[in-house]
């Protein structure tokens, strides 16, 4: 039996030593980076969990005093009165009005802008318009709030149209909040639509479809998951938006039955009450967290619904 001699680099390249495929130096840098990344990922989850616990603990305390049923379905919200009542419906109706109005503005405008940018605008125009749109998203919400209060409500609604409304209205807050959310929905759904391969549009055009048909029947379904994600983010922003509603929607917690009424939203209540002098551990203090938890659950619910919806209807390319 002959001895097998390893065929190394020397055999192939004369004058060179045989090469080994084994790692010959430790890669400390990579190990360290991997560690950092792992810490970042874990930290995110831990912090989220921490927030949830911070919400849950005072909330549980709250529900020892007030029953869940009275909280969810009671129609009188008066946590600071001597004759205290903790029915959250007034806050919920105000949030529903402002968010509903905002989404009624933001979804059509946002999707329209996205379709225009992605399907109709020439590349040069898109390059200019998209950053402009994203600047709109960077305006501080307190500025939007002042705009809603001073211009929309005072100047336009009461001055120009002489509407029967007070200093505040859920309509003014909702409309301006809608404008604020447009860039979020437009930008994210534009990204989703632009990501649909050009070959699909060409295939559609080659069959005699016009641009609108291609957009509605091919691009839209293919980009659905991104578009729904954009809308859900819009919903979350609307439900969670605080500054605009705190400034322009009003401060009295009463059930809202029309768009020109004032109303205190869930976030508006938290913003106002948190500024007050509620003692840690008091019922008033715990109330804040109960409302916060409800807010969190509402957003979570929308997320779940959207995931189910997307799974059911999207067309995966």
């Amino acid at each position, binding site marked *: 039996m002959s001895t097998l001699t390893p065929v190394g680099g020397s055999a192939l390249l004369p004058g060179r030593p045989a090469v080994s495929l084994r790692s010959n130096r430790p890669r400390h840098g990579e190990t360290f980076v991997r560690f950092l990344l792992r810490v970042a990922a874990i930290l995110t989850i831990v912090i989220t969990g921490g927030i949830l616990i911070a919400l849950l603990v005072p909330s549980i305390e709250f529900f020892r005093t007030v029953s869940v049923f009275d909280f969810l379905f009671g129609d009188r919200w008066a946590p600071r009165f001597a004759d205290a009542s903790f029915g959250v419906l007034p806050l919920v109706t105000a949030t529903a009005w402002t968010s509903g109005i905002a989404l009624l503005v933001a979804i059509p405008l946002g999707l329209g802008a996205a379709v225009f940018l992605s399907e109709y605008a020439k590349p040069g125009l898109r390059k200019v318009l998209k950053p402009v749109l994203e600047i709109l998203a960077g305006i501080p919400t307190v500025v939007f709030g002042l705009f809603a209060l001073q211009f929309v409500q005072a100047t336009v609604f009461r001055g120009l149209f002489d509407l029967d409304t007070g200093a505040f209205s859920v309509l003014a807050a909702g409309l301006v909040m809608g404008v604020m959310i447009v860039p979020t929905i437009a930008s994210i759904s534009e990204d989703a639509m632009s990501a649909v391969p050009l070959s699909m549009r060409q*295939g*559609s*055009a*080659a069959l*005699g*479809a016009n641009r609108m048909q291609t957009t509605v029947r*091919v691009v839209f379904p293919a980009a659905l998951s991104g578009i729904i994600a954009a809308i859900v983010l819009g919903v979350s922003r609307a439900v969670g938006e605080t500054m605009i509603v705190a400034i322009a929607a009003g401060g009295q917690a009463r059930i809202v039955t029309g768009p020109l009424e004032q109303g205190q939203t869930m976030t508006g209540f938290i913003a106002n009450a948190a500024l007050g002098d509620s003692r840690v551990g008091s019922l008033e203090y715990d109330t804040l967290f109960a409302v916060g938890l409800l807010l969190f659950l509402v957003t979570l619910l929308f997320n779940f619904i959207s995931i189910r919806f997307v799974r059911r209807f999207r*067309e995966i390319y």
Partner: protein
Amino acid sequence: MPTKTRAASYTTGSDQKPTIHFPAEHAERSAALPTVPNAIIECKDVNVYYNAFRAVTGVDLSFGSKEITALIGPSGCGKSTLLRSLNRMNDLIDGARVEGSVTFQGEDIYHKEVDAIEVRRRIGMVFQKPNPFPKSIYDNIAYGPRVIGLKASNMDDLVEEALTRAALWPEVKDKLKQSAFGLSGGQQQRLCIARTIAVKPDVILMDEPCSSLDPIATSRIEDLMYELREDYTIIIVTHNMQQAARVADRTAFFTALASEETGDRTGLLVEYDLTKKIFESPADQRTEDYISGRFG
């Protein structure tokens, strides 16, 4: 037919056109072009630009009705660009511009009153990479008839007919509701052909339809083209010379020519004739070099 006069026009382009110097022999080249009886699409002095860049220069070419015409030539010779200008797919590309005239059944498809959408309905297209929609097999076929508002008394029948013509029906008849993305590459390409047939066009343009397929799938597509020729005019761009030799009635050979000044390459038609003539006794030396594998 403009022949020798066109040689001059190459070098006397206006400022925006890149000037390209051609060898003298080009003056003679189109004299040998055979007239195509029963032409359905005719190109006269077609130039296609992408912004200032001229991708195709001075093409005169007629495509016979219910024939298969192959466009062959090396990469960058503008054959795909020319193909896309035949049904105004270039409209979708920013900066693309077509000069000269392209007529379909005698009507200029670039006339300002002509609707590009109607043009594409009559002149369909199958692309290099299969591009089914992310929908069910059934909806892929029904898409075209639906968007053009074709009055189909029974959509199911129409879908079956199109899939049968594309030789795909036996393979998919039990999974019409499944996603087209579950099909193999060859099946997807036949689905794209079926989708095109479903809107009943007159002409089908095929842009290297087999370039992403294996030889067996390729041969099925070629058989299919041969069958479709009875009812449709087919114009195919291919890099595969054997494919052109196998399926095409006529073959046009293009080449790419670099400008002496800018180095930009532009495509031009070298020779156009019956496929047999092109492959057995080409008139132009460059055609012979390409066919025999000495170039390109």
